[in-house]
């Protein structure tokens, strides 16, 4: 791939784990200001033993340069000030790049050639609103609200896959597939089948309620055995406890390894909006990264145990990166370019980044890490090579109008 074979001058070292001239950056994200919470969604019944896909959405705008610091960039330390200081040494990947010290598991995956760090990646949307940017991230459009369904939902629809969401609400990214289920652990007893049958009659004239009830009924009666024990109940009632994301990741793996399990799962973690006090080693960013790292490890472990890791690709993405420079309150404000991670058995590993540099003149608007890779290129590459979505469908339906965005090749041939 062109990008990998022609590193830009600023970051030139090769990944230790890979003879190709790939750059290895740090991965992971910042947990942040709005407090951590997490959810899990599933989509699509695949053929037995088919390929699996997991999307982890980091809501709030993960600081890409906090999670994957460009410590070898000459302008990194001066722009970041105290944010360039870490409680423990960053986990080096090469002469230039490193991972946040709380991303040890991800670092190990990079070392094993199972994880690729894609840096300076982002959306074509550049206006820095969380809500608009998340809409674009999930819808797969260019401008907010031009599309009302999600790219993953549309991708699954091309193969007639159905969906299931392991959260109370269906995330936008999954909307558009013919059916999407949601599932979340419950602490209440199951209603009687008789009541549900009566409700179905009563909902005959209310299609949205009828559809939701029907999907829920199948899901709950089908998975009743799975509901009984579980840390994932930590997600209900008074909200997420620490470790809830790990429990959800474990649950995601349990679903995905089933022969007739879903083809895709969506996990979400909030809390990355680190406007203030990002430097705190016990703060939201550090804690979020720790939780993300543990969750990714749990997901991997469950998939390995169930024999599905070799056919699973996981993409971790956020709506935008944050400002290169530290702000006035030891945090970072909304930016544009950031980092994404791709992991799984079929992944080549290493780093992909057309590094723009961090000097003020190299930044977008003089403030943000410049986006040099369209996130859609990453997603198109994974959907094409792993879920075998046809390129015409990718260009026209999944990411409409994206003919010129060439898919990245991130998986082993």
């Amino acid at each position, binding site marked *: 791939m062109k990008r990998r074979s022609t590193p830009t001058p600023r970051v030139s070292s090769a990944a230790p784990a890979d003879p190709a001239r790939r750059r290895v950056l740090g991965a992971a994200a910042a947990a942040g*200001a*709005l*407090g951590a919470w997490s959810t899990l969604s599933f989509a699509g019944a695949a053929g037995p033993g088919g390929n699996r896909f997991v999307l982890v959405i980091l*809501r709030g705008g993960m600081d890409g340069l906090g999670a994957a610091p460009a410590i070898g960039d000459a302008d990194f330390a001066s722009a970041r000030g*105290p944010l360039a*200081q870490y409680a423990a040494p960053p986990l080096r990947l090469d002469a230039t790049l490193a991972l946040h010290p709380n991303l040890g598991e991800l670092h190990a995956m990079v070392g094993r050639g199972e994880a690729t760090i894609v840096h300076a990646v982002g959306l074509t949307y550049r*206006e*820095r*609103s*969380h*809500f*608009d940017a998340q809409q674009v991230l999930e819808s797969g459009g260019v401008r*907010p609200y031009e599309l009302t369904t999600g790219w993953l939902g549309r991708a699954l629809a091309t193969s007639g896959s159905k969906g299931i*969401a392991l*959260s*109370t*609400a*269906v995330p936008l990214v999954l*909307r558009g597939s013919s059916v999407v289920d*949601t*599932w*979340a652990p*419950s*602490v*209440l*007893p*199951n*209603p*009687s089948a*008789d*009541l549900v049958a*009566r409700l179905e*009659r*009563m909902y*005959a*004239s*209310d299609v949205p*309620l009828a*559809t*939701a*009830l*029907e999907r*829920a009924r199948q*899901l*709950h009666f089908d998975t009743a055995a799975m509901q009984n024990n579980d840390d994932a109940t930590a997600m*209900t*009632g*008074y*909200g997420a406890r620490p470790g809830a994301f790990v429990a959800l990741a474990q649950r995601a793996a349990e679903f995905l390894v089933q022969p007739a399990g879903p083809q895709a799962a969506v996990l979400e973690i*909030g809390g990355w909006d680190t*406007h*203030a*006090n990002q430097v705190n080693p016990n703060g939201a960013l550090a804690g979020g990264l720790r939780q993300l790292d543990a969750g990714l490890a749990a997901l991997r472990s469950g998939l390995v145990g169930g024999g599905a890791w070799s056919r699973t690709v996981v993409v971790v993405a956020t709506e935008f990166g944050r400002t290169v420079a530290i*702000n*006035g*309150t*030891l945090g970072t*404000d*909304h930016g544009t370019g950031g980092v994404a991670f791709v992991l799984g058995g079929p992944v080549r590993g290493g780093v992909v980044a057309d590094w723009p540099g961090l000097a003020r003149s190299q930044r977008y*608007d003089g403030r943000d890490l410049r986006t040099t890779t369209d996130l859609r290129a990453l997603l198109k590459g994974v959907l094409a090579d792993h879920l075998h979505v046809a390129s015409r469908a990718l260009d026209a339906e999944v990411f409409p109008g994206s003919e010129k965005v060439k898919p990245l090749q991130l998986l082993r041939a």
Partner: protein
Amino acid sequence: MASSLQLQSAIAAHRFGLGEANLAVVDSDPQGWLAAQIGPADAPRGSGLLDTRQALDHVAAEREKRQLAKNPPPGMTAEQLISGHYREVIVADARSRLATAALTQRPFAERLQMFWTNHFTVSLLKGTARGLVGAFERDAIRPNIAGRFETLLVAATTHPAMLRYLDNWLSAGPDSRVVAFEARRAARREEGPRVSGLNENLAREVLELHTLGAESARGGVYTQADVTAFAAVLTGWRVARDPDPGAPVFDPNWHEPGRKTVLGKSYGEGADALRQVLHDLARHPATARFVSTKLARHFVADDPPPALVDRLTAAYLKSDGLLAEVYRELIRDDASWHARPTKLKTPEEFVVSTARLLAFGDRWFERPEANNNAAVGAIGALGQRLQAAPSPAGWSDRADDWLGPDAVWKRVEWATRVADRAGRIVDTRQLAAQSLGPLLGAETARQIERAADGPQALALLLLAPEFQRR
């Protein structure tokens, strides 16, 4: 055949209120019933509620206890010092909010309070706002829901909970005295400064979520430069780390000197500039449209009729942002009274309207949270943990976002629990007719009539489309 007046009574009670066990309370004049409720929200019920000053003191005391817990004095454990910290305050807030809504005779005002509390979201998911959310609702929102939007906007923006939630208390002018002082102190100690400049969080969200709306950013009404300049205007509006009773919320030492230009207009240095910017934002046509759209979406339809939004916007602009006038227009407009309810109740509305339907008194809200059908925990289990909206945009006001299969299933589970007890002592057939009136559909009435027993009949009523929607 129901008269249109009966239908209007049912719509007034359910769409604009929080449901009634008997439509007789609406009497013969549904519009008049609603209009008479326009005004400040009820005084909150309950005890143990902190005002803003007390809540800040409590936060400061909690911080001290945590400091102390790092090195507990003899005879005390760290756990004793920090256990139960904010929980009592938050549970008291939540119970008060629900009991007030369940028992009020002015449910339209209560709905407006809920709408504005969500519009100006402050969430305890951010630790700095924890313990202050209830005081914010009571002191900044409740008294101001029917006055000028500007008054509400100023109260919300300058409340300590908002200043902390969106980081403004930490934002300093890059050329402010505190930044210069911090730089000198840091140099002396050979460490980094704790504050060095702006934090744009509050400025951006006031523009995007509270006034002009995201559409305005997309349309170029405001730009990044306006966000940055507005952030400079906002500097100095903060809450001291150790609040001193009577201390001003504005600290000039943190304020950025010089004039700032926001939306093409120049504002002077000092505390007063914020009020001037908010004054101008409140009168901006984009704000009028944004607020009108959200109100119409909340009460009438996820995608409200454009003509209704136009008329609300006109009422807003004509009255100089007097919210009472906008509400009067809303309840006067035929488009608001369409016969088919499409809005799905939020979990909070569902639980509160259940309490009103079944005439649960104060005591229902005092149940221990270990009890699964206690109100506060139930709303959380249904997906809307009180005081804990996931982002500054607040809870969604669109049915799609509440209609995930699991969310609907949890409503079924909870309704089953409630009905298991209450269904044995009420006549659900009569209740359905008295509460829903002409809204009650033939199929729902038939299913209730044929229910296997009382609990099942009540569960069916609570889960009926006519009760889930409004």
